[in-house]
């Protein structure tokens, strides 16, 4: 069944395919760890895609494009922050509205940029490393954003686990009242987390428009933001698991297309629903094995905070 599929190429392909989802998922993971549920990931991703694209075309630099993407995503997330943190609006509805608004706004902004090619983002020259059999192809022949996405996961993990900043963030997400009583500025921390989430989603979107596709067209992120949301839950709010989840999802997506290309005799419609099915299956196995301990959703997730006392 796996005949004709080169595992090195497959792994290399899935690492690239998963980048937008990883970046967006890590951003959302921080947001949710701070106790905020932002369902507007898709909207922030596509704003990042269009802003990043425009920035890259205008400056001629792909790196600046990613900066632009991060800014675009963060700017849109500020609307969400204003609504939920200052005006105490419902988070679920605000997030969905954000997606609707982002899809519309991105299309308006991008009107004059349809059909242009952005500056290229090449592979990082790692010299002889790239020539190592198998590992060279899998690990050492990617563009910088692939490495960056893994680094972001590592840093996020470290910050959450080992730093004071991570501790405060988690405290705010677990019990905002207690965190407030301890003197932490709940609202400020949450706004910063939301902006980080927006910036990461924006970079993920920029990866789609600058590297994966690379072009600007309406609706280019095509639902990646929703998958990122699912991956955060899949990961039980843990960074490395988010990486695993994104690779699993991306891997099955790539594998099913490879199986088709290799002429495997499996009905296509089952292949194409397989990434979703297998993600659910893996989650079931994971959460049934460890019981409740596996589910560490931040206790204050989705609840607004108002310092009444």
């Amino acid at each position: 069944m796996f005949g004709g599929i080169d595992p090195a190429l497959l792994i290399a392909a899935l690492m690239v395919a998963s980048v937008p989802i990883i970046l967006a998922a890590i951003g959302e993971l921080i947001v949710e760890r701070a106790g905020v549920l932002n369902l507007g990931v898709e909207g922030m991703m596509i704003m990042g895609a269009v802003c990043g694209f425009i920035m890259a075309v205008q400056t001629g630099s792909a790196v600046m494009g990613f900066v632009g993407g991060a800014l675009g995503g963060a700017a849109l997330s500020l609307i969400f922050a204003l609504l939920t943190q200052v005006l105490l609006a419902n988070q679920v509805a605000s997030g969905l509205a954000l997606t609707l608004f982002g899809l519309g706004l991105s299309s308006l902004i991008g009107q004059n940029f349809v059909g242009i090619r952005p500056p290229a983002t090449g592979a990082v020259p790692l010299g002889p490393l790239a020539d190592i059999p198998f590992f060279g192809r899998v690990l050492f022949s990617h563009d910088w954003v692939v490495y960056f996405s893994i680094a972001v996961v590592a840093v996020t993990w470290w910050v959450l686990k080992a730093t004071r900043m991570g501790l405060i963030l988690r405290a705010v997400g677990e019990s905002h009242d207690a965190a407030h009583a301890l003197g932490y500025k709940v609202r400020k921390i949450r706004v910063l987390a939301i902006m980080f989430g927006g910036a990461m989603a924006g970079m993920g979107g920029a990866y789609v428009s600058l590297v994966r596709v690379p072009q600007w067209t309406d609706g280019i992120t095509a639902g990646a933001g929703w998958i990122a949301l699912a991956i955060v839950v899949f990961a039980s709010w843990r960074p490395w698991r988010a990486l695993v989840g994104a690779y699993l999802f991306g891997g099955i997506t790539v594998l099913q297309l490879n199986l088709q290309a290799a002429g495997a005799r499996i009905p296509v419609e089952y292949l194409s629903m397989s990434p979703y099915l297998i993600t659910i299956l893996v989650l079931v196995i994971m959460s049934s094995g460890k019981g409740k301990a596996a589910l560490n959703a931040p206790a204050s997730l989705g609840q607004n905070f108002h310092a009444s006392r």
Partner: protein
Amino acid sequence: MLRLEKRPSPSRFWQGATPVLAVVLTMIAGGLMFAALGKNPVEAIRTIFWDPLFHPQFASYSRPQLLVKAGPLILIAIGLSLGFRAGIWNIGAEGQYIMGALFGAGVGLAFYPADHWFIFPLMVIAGALGGWIWAMIPAILKTKFNTNEILVSLLMVYIAQNFLSSMSLGLLRNPQGGGFPGSRNLSQYPAASNPELFAGTGMHWGVIAALMAVIAAYILLQRHILGFHIKLAGQAPRAARYAGVNPTGLVLLCMGISGALAGLAGLFEVAGPAGQISIGFNVGYGFTAIIVAFLGRLNPIGILLAGLLMALTYIGGELAQFMLGLPAAAIQAFQGMLLFFLLAVDLLSNYRIRLGYKKEAI
């Protein structure tokens, strides 16, 4: 300095006034956007909010269409609101909507071309069942294995979409359709169709079901012990357990109701306005209904109004597109703005805005 003071109970006045205020604010902000796009803002706003209701040329047609568009939104949102109140997050109504349509249409097409009175009622049952089954999957996984229902219900949407493609290309494909995807048109099969019941009103069984759901949910939440349990589980889960609420039962019930209602919406849509199963059958009602549920503050009457308002912006937005040449994207952004303002001004009904520094708590 401005600060917020929580009201003991939401202000009646502001609950009524905030939607109006939000619409006015949206008109101003949206008008600025339309002006920036080089369109006459007054004309654009009038086309979106006024013309679908009162335009001499369109209104007689678009007014009933409001019901057609709002029907499925309200029906799905009512179901979702029960779960949301109890803290159960079914965001996969879109998938349940698809499965309801597939089950219902499948039953109807199985009888083709027979003509029996019971075909349509059977389809209704099958539609509800389809949505119910699809919602039971995340519900059972949650109660048995503790998996998160947000994730499972969302991913089930994609699986349902693949089923939909597969069915429109395979099992349910119209044998007389020359190999093209899509089922037979149910509107041309009277025993299985869901027609307009009174000419020119837009009323079909789906709209009636939506209105019935509003009333039933209202009674459930106001008068019935179950409604109390749902509210209690959402506000104070621990107290709910002491009060004898069975959390497993509640998950199954809330997911089941929302799934069945979404399935019904799908069935009424496929048998009525849409007419057939096709690859692009689902157009996002399941997701928009989440917004409608929250805009209506999870209150049945509120959902009814929110559903109608959403429908108005869709239909008005369509008119504005081809009458004024506004891009579809501008309408989408405009809808987003309206939602932002509706959500933002909600603050006024729950909080008082005070000047000065806070007093000591008593």
